[in-house]
């Protein structure tokens, strides 16, 4: 009889997860996303022209850690942030463990602390990079010179010794794939594989940040319009219609042309600011539908506040289609950024997949087209797969 009294605690997300696990293809997709993310974070270990350790005549140097925050080596802020996350990753894992196992706060509280910590890491790493006065030191040349002088030199490099902007002028560029450059080089002699690896960082960030921006705008406007209706709905709907009249991609192109020094962040904000209309309409529709349901009426009758009804009652119910559209959105944001870079209107310094593709088109070299093309295809389809699986897993009616 006592056992009857024991409450079985099942959180909503654990139910969703157990449902998601049943979809094997999506599980592989999720694995692929996690692998891509890890690859993005740990890119410097895969390819960088800075040795992890080197010693000349008995003196050992550890330039790797400091060079990660050298603005002259990593011109892109995205890279600095990812390097910060890489350095902090052992702490991040430890924090997660502490939050989950030791303190056992509620999941939402965990998430807030966790995101706060991530933002702290990003701020610290950008501050650190702001204060470095290091030049773009050529370690490989230095080591080669020391070797030529007959000094005792030993060095441990990352897997590949290239940085994404270092040019190899020892052959006729673009070089075809070889043992030295596994995917060849581009027109200026930069290693394509290395650029592809760092390109993952750009694509992932573009996808996540741009989609976060437009999800935020879309959800807030859509929720207000759908919940309150009347005049608020009228004005928000007209605003949506005005924005939707502009072809998104050409609007981004035009706006991008006005920005003098484009960075990837400009591209993210541009995508975010013009693409929220679809989400807003979706959320508005969902809210209109849910608003009339009796459970919302019951919540009003119980005296629950409007904000709470909107965000904790209706939004979770509307989340399924929103989440699916977000994963599709990540895929399309990556595509948009690639297209911009392809047209030469992206961040010209960043190693973007679209940029590589653009060079490949100009040069007519197959390896310059296939590699980034496949990468874009792969990421887009993986996100779509996972999105569909999340939708199915979140639908309580599809549960067995």
């Amino acid at each position, binding site marked *: 009889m006592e056992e009857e009294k024991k*409450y079985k605690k099942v959180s909503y997300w654990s139910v969703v997860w157990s449902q998601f696990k049943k979809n094997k293809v999506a599980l592989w997709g999720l694995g692929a996303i996690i692998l891509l993310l890890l690859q993005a974070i740990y890119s410097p270990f895969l390819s960088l022209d800075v040795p992890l350790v080197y010693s000349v005549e008995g003196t050992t140097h550890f330039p790797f850690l400091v060079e990660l925050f050298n603005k002259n080596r990593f011109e892109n802020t995205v890279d600095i942030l990812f390097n910060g996350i890489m350095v902090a990753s052992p702490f991040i894992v430890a924090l997660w463990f502490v939050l989950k196992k030791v303190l056992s706060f509620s999941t939402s509280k965990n998430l807030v602390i966790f995101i706060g910590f991530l933002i702290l890491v990003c701020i610290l790493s950008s501050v650190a990079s702001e204060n470095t006065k290091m030049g773009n030191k050529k370690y490989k040349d230095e080591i080669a010179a020391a070797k030529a002088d007959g000094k005792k030199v030993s060095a441990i490099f990352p897997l590949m010794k290239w940085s994404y902007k270092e040019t190899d002028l020892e052959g006729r560029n673009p070089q075809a794939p070889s043992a030295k450059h596994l995917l060849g080089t581009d027109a200026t002699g930069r290693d394509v594989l290395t650029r592809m690896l760092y390109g993952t960082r750009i694509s992932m960030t573009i996808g996540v940040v741009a989609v976060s921006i437009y999800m935020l705008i879309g959800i807030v406007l859509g929720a207000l319009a759908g919940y309150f209706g009347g005049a608020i709905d009228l004005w928000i709907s007209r605003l949506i219609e005005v924005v939707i009249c502009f072809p998104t991609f050409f609007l981004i192109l035009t706006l991008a042309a006005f920005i003098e020094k484009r960075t990837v962040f400009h591209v993210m904000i541009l995508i975010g600011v013009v693409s929220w209309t679809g989400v807003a309409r979706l959320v508005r529709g969902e809210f209109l539908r849910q608003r009339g349901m009796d459970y919302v*009426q019951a919540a009003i009758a119980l*005296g629950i506040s409007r904000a709470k009804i909107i965000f904790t009652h209706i939004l979770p*119910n509307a989340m399924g289609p929103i989440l699916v559209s977000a994963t599709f959105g990540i895929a399309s944001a990556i595509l948009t950024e690639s297209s911009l870079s392809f047209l030469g209107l992206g961040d010209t310094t960043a190693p973007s997949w679209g940029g590589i593709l653009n060079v490949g088109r100009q040069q007519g070299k197959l390896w310059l087209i296939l590699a980034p093309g496949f990468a874009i295809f792969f990421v887009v389809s993986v996100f779509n797969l996972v999105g569909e699986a999340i939708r199915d897993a979140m639908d*309580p009616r599809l549960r067995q």
Partner: protein
Amino acid sequence: MSQEKKELLKVEGLKKYFPVVSGFFSKVTGYVKAVDNISFTVNEGETVGMVGESGCGKTTAGRTIIRLIEPTAGNIYFKNKDIMQLKGQELKDMRRNMQIIFQDPYSSLNPRKTILEIVGEALEVHNIAKGKEKEDIVANLMEKVGLSPKYINRYPHEFSGGQRQRVGIARAIALKPSLIICDEPVSALDVSIQAQVINLLIDLREEMNLSYIFVAHDLSVVKHISHRIIVMYLGKLVEMAETEELFAHPCHPYTQALLSAIPNPDPTNKSHRIVLTGDVPSPINPPSGCPFHPRCVRRKPICSKEEPPIQHRTDTHFYKCFLEPDK
């Protein structure tokens, strides 16, 4: 039932008109008079049944009373306090005293929340209980409505319709209200479950001294639970009486037609069934005079011209018709 009960709710001249808009500029071209000038009272511990056809405004009336829908006109006094003007915190406090049970047990529970969250949220919002204490109260409530507390962390989709309706009842009584609007709470359930839920509502009424406004379209259900019955037709109140009185002496032709539609289990007693012809007229353009006259079997020429007067059969039994009460 004792007559000297304290008055709990008083509804005066309640109206709810929904505007009918058309055209590009959303011009108001007419009104749906869903609830048209109804007045009644509910005493403490009393159940008032509200019956009528689909679309006669029963549900709208119920929801207007607890201010889920803002009325067009009228006054509602709850414990002698005018609740039409309440805002913010006062409105929130008022909500503790009035709750609602819905018809559809499927859409009335949030599919994303567990029973604990659904029933317990109100306790938290009104600062009554939190955490373990809240869990205990919810478990208690579940037992009270006949659900095993071990299901406390289950989701609504894991329950049957009758069980869900019990969850809806648990949610409604969680704040210990004094009045519950039952918006056709058993219409969506099958007959054996209907009886269980009705009996549960009666038990809770005795135990917690609840008052109900029991909205239904099935007179036999209403007869079982109500002390008094209101008959509505096209947004208007057409007859009101004590349950026994109404069943013994229905005065309005519409009430007579409704009563004749109740199936009689005795095969030897062939009752005369009054079959209403035609549909309920559109509430946008209600018929002139008595709204019931186009379908009335006993209509007279005057019915289409003048609004019928209120006539009393007894002190507490009145109806709106030109026909004389049959004493």
